[in-house]
């Protein structure tokens, strides 16, 4: 369907529009500079050169070495590569059979860890989270044991926006000699990711979450990390991700990452007051409503709520009919009948847990959009409660 122009988009955690500069940067790599970056002729060299420049750009932003960067087909693929790559390496060396994670990870981590348990027999410990969805680093330390090969804790949660204590968890892992993977898909462009500072061994990103194209992700693999590629083929990406590289995508990701990091401080400073106005306005005007996730340690663009006794899915449809795009929890979880697993893990009861709404701000939003939400949302919740 075609979209009316006056719609308000408040679902930037689901995806973002591609930045015009990114489109421009990618443009030459479709038909003009189309070579296969693995070919030795001039066409290939031109593509390889663009690819390596993109890698360098990404490495500069992330404060790591270009050789530590692997371009992938999505954030989910990057995370799968990380977890399976470490798991196969552990199998190969025979060292370790235990993974530590949390109950609030995105399915890209959660379902993959489940498979590692079901198919490869890895033991899994889920460290509990508090009422804000936060992990206590000392719980991570307590869960690590001889035979632990990997800790996987996300930087920021997609559904509730809570930011974890990544530095401290990284330090715990480093002290205990355990690999640390973090899902940074929601974090890029929103919180600093200087890998030289964080003790992270593997980190996954997705370009379309920060105004880059869909269908391209990035995996950072720290030099020296035991890693057996879960997919096999050619030598692309140093054999860590075989398959002809999407040069346009890599250029798009790198450009978007550079732009996002460049504007991060200013954009967060712009969005934070809008977010706070939104949170304040919703909690003031809607009875039996609450903020989900941490009030302070949360993404600057992320507001998430629970409304007692109302289905989040219904609120989303109502908002859509009013021209406002929002989400109930995570985009992938839409349509799931049960209360969100994230909210359940935080100890939120089902009559609240079904009523979750996520509003995530971005480039095109301003105070008028927030005002528009505050104008229609209270009435929607009231009507749903009345008809419920």
């Amino acid at each position, binding site marked *: *369907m075609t979209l009316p122009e006056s719609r308000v988009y408040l679902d930037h955690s689901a995806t973002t529009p591609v930045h015009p500069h990114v489109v421009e940067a990618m443009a030459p790599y479709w038909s003009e500079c189309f070579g296969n970056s693995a070919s030795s002729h001039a066409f290939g060299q031109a593509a390889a050169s663009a690819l390596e420049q993109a890698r360098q750009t990404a490495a500069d932003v992330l404060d790591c070495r270009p050789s530590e960067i692997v371009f992938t087909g999505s954030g989910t693929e990057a995370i799968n590569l990380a977890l399976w790559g470490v798991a196969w390496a552990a199998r190969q060396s025979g060292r370790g059979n235990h993974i530590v994670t949390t109950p609030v990870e995105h399915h890209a981590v959660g379902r993959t860890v489940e498979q590692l348990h079901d198919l490869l027999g890895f033991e899994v410990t889920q460290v509990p989270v508090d009422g804000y969805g936060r992990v206590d680093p000392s719980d991570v330390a307590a869960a690590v044991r001889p035979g632990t090969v990997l800790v996987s804790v996300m930087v920021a949660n997609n559904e509730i926006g809570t930011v974890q204590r990544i530095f401290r968890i990284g330090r715990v892992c480093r002290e205990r000699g355990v690999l640390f993977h973090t899902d940074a898909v929601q974090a890029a462009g929103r919180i600093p990711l200087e890998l030289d500072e964080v003790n992270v061994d593997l980190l996954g990103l997705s370009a379309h979450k920060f105004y880059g194209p869909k269908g391209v992700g990035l995996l950072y693999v720290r030099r020296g990390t035991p890693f057996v590629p879960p997919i096999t083929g050619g030598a692309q990406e140093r054999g860590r991700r075989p398959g002809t590289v999407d040069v346009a995508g890599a250029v798009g990701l790198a450009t978007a990452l550079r732009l996002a990091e460049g504007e991060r401080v200013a954009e967060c400073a712009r969005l934070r007051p809008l977010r706070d106005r939104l949170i304040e306005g919703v909690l003031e005007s809607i009875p039996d409503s609450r903020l989900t996730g941490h009030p302070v340690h949360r993404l600057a663009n992320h507001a998430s709520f629970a409304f007692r006794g109302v289905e989040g899915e219904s609120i989303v449809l109502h908002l859509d009919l*009013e021209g406002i795009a929002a989400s109930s929890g995570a985009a992938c979880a839409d*349509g799931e*009948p049960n209360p969100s697993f994230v909210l359940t893990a935080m100890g939120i009861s089902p009559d609240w847990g079904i009523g979750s709404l996520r509003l995530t701000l971005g480039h095109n939003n301003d105070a008028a959009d927030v005002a528009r939400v505050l104008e229609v949302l209270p009435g929607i919740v009231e009507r749903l409660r009345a008809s419920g």
Partner: protein
Amino acid sequence: MMDLCGSRMSDSTGRPSDVEGSPEVRTGANDGRRFSPRVFAALSGGVDSAVAAVLLVERGFEVIGAMLRLWAEPRPGSARADTSDAPEAVDRARCVADWLNIPFYLIDAEEPFKVHVVDYLVAEYAAGRTPNPCVPCNRVIRFGLLMERSRALGAEFLATGHYARVRAVAGCYQLLRGRDSRKDQSYFLHTLDQQQLAHVLFPLGELTKGEVRAIARRSGLPVAEQPESQDICFLADGDYRRFLAHQAPHLFRPGPILDTSGQVLGQHQGLPGYTIGQRKGLGITAPEPLYVLAIEPADNAIIVGPAEEMGRDECLVEEMHYIDGKMPTVPFQATAQIRYRARPTPVTITPLPDRAAHVRFASPQRDITPGQYLVLYDGEIVLGGGVICESRQSML
């Protein structure tokens, strides 16, 4: 405004004003859409529901496409529950909505559908009855959950692609057979009440299947050549016996096949494999054809007999529902259908306490089947119906 919809005929007084509690019709904020009633069009991915939506759009309604996400049996070899037909049907429905340039929402009903339709089906077979899952699905899911959801979303009407009609007569809504007698689906809708009928539209009610296909082709609908859907939507392969054997293996205990004098003629492979009137697949050699006369779950037995023992001219019906909302107190005449495809036959209904009724047929019927719905008609008007619980041949 209502004459916009051909399926919705009004008498001279027009539409009754008893649609209390309906939210005011809104145009939808900050867009340029016309001020017109909002309609939820239930899409299934098939031709009928798509044409219904086309007609509504042509008539100027603000149409919103909606599809129910129902429970579906996992396909063999797949690990997850969402891998039956459903995803392709969703894609087709989405495609129709996209083609019509209307919003499309997938409404989750997996859990209630499992409870009220799938579990009901299994429980009915366990009790030796032959259920009809489409009736509770319409009552609880389509015109229950989906209607509530559409009303909550500001829709004045829920429209479906059923071949049936609604007519308002002197402040009361009547449900009528679809104009195309071969496609008439009013049987499945007999549980609707006044409140629901006030808010349903059946745009195909006045059309034949041929006309619907023609509209689909003329308008270039992407699903114009979609074949008819199968009987039970949630089965991976349409084979309910295999489904039951998988879901409820305990129901498949072999037991005796008896004649009416109690003599054992053979062995059956589990009661759910049989229905009243069935002749084939009994595995008995007899001089004359034998038919299933009764299913006795208490004895895990099937009773069979020759054709002349099949006739029954009385039955007891429970959970009677009358569309006009008035429970009759005295016996009355009507015609009845004892299955979806059964021929309407004259009956006398005697109301009994607790929403039960005694039904006497003018002539003996061969396959009055417990679990099936008996639906009452006055000509083309649906009066209501109930579920058959037992039948017998009167000794008079």
